[in-house]
């Protein structure tokens, strides 16, 4: 691009906008749907129930250890589909760009989105770009929507957890939250923590091959594992008991959290899922998960219980118990 920064004219609908689309977006996202140049993508219907989701990404900073807002926008929407057991067939990308955004940064984000979509095997079939005046947004906001197909016989629902079910997690807790927080605060750790952003639909497909009898899938993003488990406990009207000693929290995450006064259970994850399923299938599903790179760190962290519906509790390392509550307000660093 001959301009080094985004100008308001890039969103005007005129020739500069066409240049932007032709030179930045099309070469990266190129596929038959986009090449048609129509106002909509028309997809084949392979049959089955359709899952549909949307999410907006406003992460600050837009570049952090292990990724950018671009990968998040692709992985996040794919994962929202996957948590319903759906296999994604197409994504939309809507971008809101702030006047003055560095063109290099935009091109890097777009390249990374392309790579993430290619790796996931999910095409970006339609898109939109708007440019807003400086100060009206923070560099770049991205909205992605996605459509997926739910296989026959799969009914995954946050209200479906049953007493006796096992609670599994697909890997380590807290990486993304620490990566973003450390970038935001300019902190550097001996062991750098990088975001876990990745798509999970293949992992889900593999799990469903082992058994279709999976009750709940959720990706513990904003609000973290604690908030997600609380949502499930309330939706399913059950209690959840997790064990502190079983939680896969990397030492670097623990260290960073101790320093910042944060709790890993409330930190966002962008490439992990919680699975709740009958105990009888748990071992087989865990084995299948561990055989895939996305699920290499999969483990059991607790179980669904009948008492104390709506409450998540933790058996602590010393054998005590406490509640794991939802997050109230922003997490604030400690003051002394």
């Amino acid at each position, binding site marked *: 691009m001959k301009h080094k920064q985004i100008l308001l004219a890039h969103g005007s609908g005129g020739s500069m906008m066409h240049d932007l689309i032709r030179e930045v977006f099309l070469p990266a996202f190129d596929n038959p749907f986009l090449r048609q140049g129509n106002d909509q993508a028309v997809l084949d219907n392979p049959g089955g129930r359709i899952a549909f989701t949307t999410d907006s990404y406003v992460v600050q900073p837009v570049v952090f250890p292990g990724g950018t807002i671009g990968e998040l926008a692709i992985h996040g929407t794919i994962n929202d589909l996957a948590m319903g057991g759906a296999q994604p067939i197409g994504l939309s990308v809507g971008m809101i760009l702030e006047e003055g955004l560095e063109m290099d940064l935009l091109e890097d984000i777009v390249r990374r989105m392309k790579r993430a979509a290619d790796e996931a095997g999910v095409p970006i079939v339609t898109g939109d770009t708007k440019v807003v005046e400086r100060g009206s947004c923070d560099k770049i906001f991205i909205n992605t929507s996605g459509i997926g197909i739910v296989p026959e016989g799969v009914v995954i629902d946050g209200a479906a957890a049953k007493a006796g079910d096992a609670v599994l997690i697909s890997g380590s807790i807290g990486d993304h939250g620490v990566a973003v927080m450390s970038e935001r605060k300019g902190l550097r750790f001996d062991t750098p923590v990088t975001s876990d952003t990745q798509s999970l639909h293949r992992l889900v497909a593999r799990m469903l091959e082992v058994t279709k009898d999976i009750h709940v899938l959720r990706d513990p993003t904003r609000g973290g594992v604690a908030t997600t488990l609380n949502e499930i406990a309330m939706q399913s009207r059950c209690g959840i008991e997790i064990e502190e000693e079983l939680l896969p929290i990397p030492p670097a995450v623990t260290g960073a959290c101790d320093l910042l006064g944060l709790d890993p259970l409330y930190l966002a994850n962008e490439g992990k899922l919680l699975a709740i399923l009958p105990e009888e299938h748990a071992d087989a599903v865990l084995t299948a998960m561990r055989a895939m790179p996305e699920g290499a760190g999969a483990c059991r962290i607790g179980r669904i219980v009948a008492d104390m519906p709506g409450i998540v509790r933790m058996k602590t390392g010393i054998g005590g118990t*406490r509640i794991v509550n939802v997050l109230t*307000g922003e997490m604030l660093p400690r003051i002394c």
Partner: protein
Amino acid sequence: MSIISSFRESARAKPIIERIHKRDTGPVSIMEFCGGHTVAIFRSGIRTIMPAHVRMISGPGCPVCVTSNGDLDRAVALAKTPGVILATYGDMLRVPGSEESLMQVKAQGYAVEIVYSTLDALALAEAHPEKEIVFFAIGFETTSPAAAAAVLQARSRELRNFSLCSVMKLTIPGARALLSMGEVKVDAVIGPGHVSSIIGADAWRFLPDEYGIPVAISGFETLDLLAATDALLGMIEEGKPDLANTYSRIVKPGGNRKAWDAVQQVFELREASWRGFGNIPDSGLALREEFADYDADRRFDIQVAPAPEHPACRCGEVLRGVAMPPDCKVFGSACTPEHPLGPCMVSSEGSCAAYFHYQRHQL
């Protein structure tokens, strides 16, 4: 990191817990003075594994919580003063004053900035020479050296637009006030770890010497707190109240001389207003005359009306250990972390918030 995890190992906790259960003390009440300990005790589930005869109660050790409504109202008035940016720690924002909280004031468009350290507040002063930066300084001995350092730095950098509104308090006069009131039976005290790292473990010797109450200075990991509790029960069992320092990796008998000297250089003692206690003589830190230029109280003429506390809120009694959070009628109903009526429900170190977040299933 491995150093930290070694303090959280359940295998190492087990023998200490067994010993605690075997201690023949009769019914005892152990009070922790530090809000950080309150949270650590709840998070680790220590209360849930204590023998029935050991009662653990929280004291006035949450700096946000003991800040009086009057002092909060002063912060609100400062934030509303034209040209002022009020900088403070994040925990302070949601605490309701008699009319409104700093967060509500911020939402009205006044400049209230969350800072993570006093140096951030200095940076604000450098970045905004046209504004007056007032740092609303709360906290105990732990945070006071950083406040002193900020004032000394401001002087050496010749920053003329930085001042401190000090409502900082000292734990020892607070502890003495609590014990002298005699309202609550305290058989042993878990002494604050980070406060003691500044003033020294020996500062707590008055507890066994004058009150006959054993004290154990503790760290914040589960094993620290178990070891401190065990040491206290041991002293009660033997009938020999003494001072134990189970946090000796951080806390020295004489504390951190250099840090405390800086505090003495910048501040002098004055009467301070504590929520739940009223005014306690010589329990607060005020800027010395020499540093008057950095004293927001002298630079701004702020008058606030006497400030009543919310009639239903029992934070004062909770802070004195007289009432437990669930004893309060509005706990968990009209007063929740989302809609707090009092500071103990707001602060991450407040007893009510700790009860609500970690233990309300056992009420």
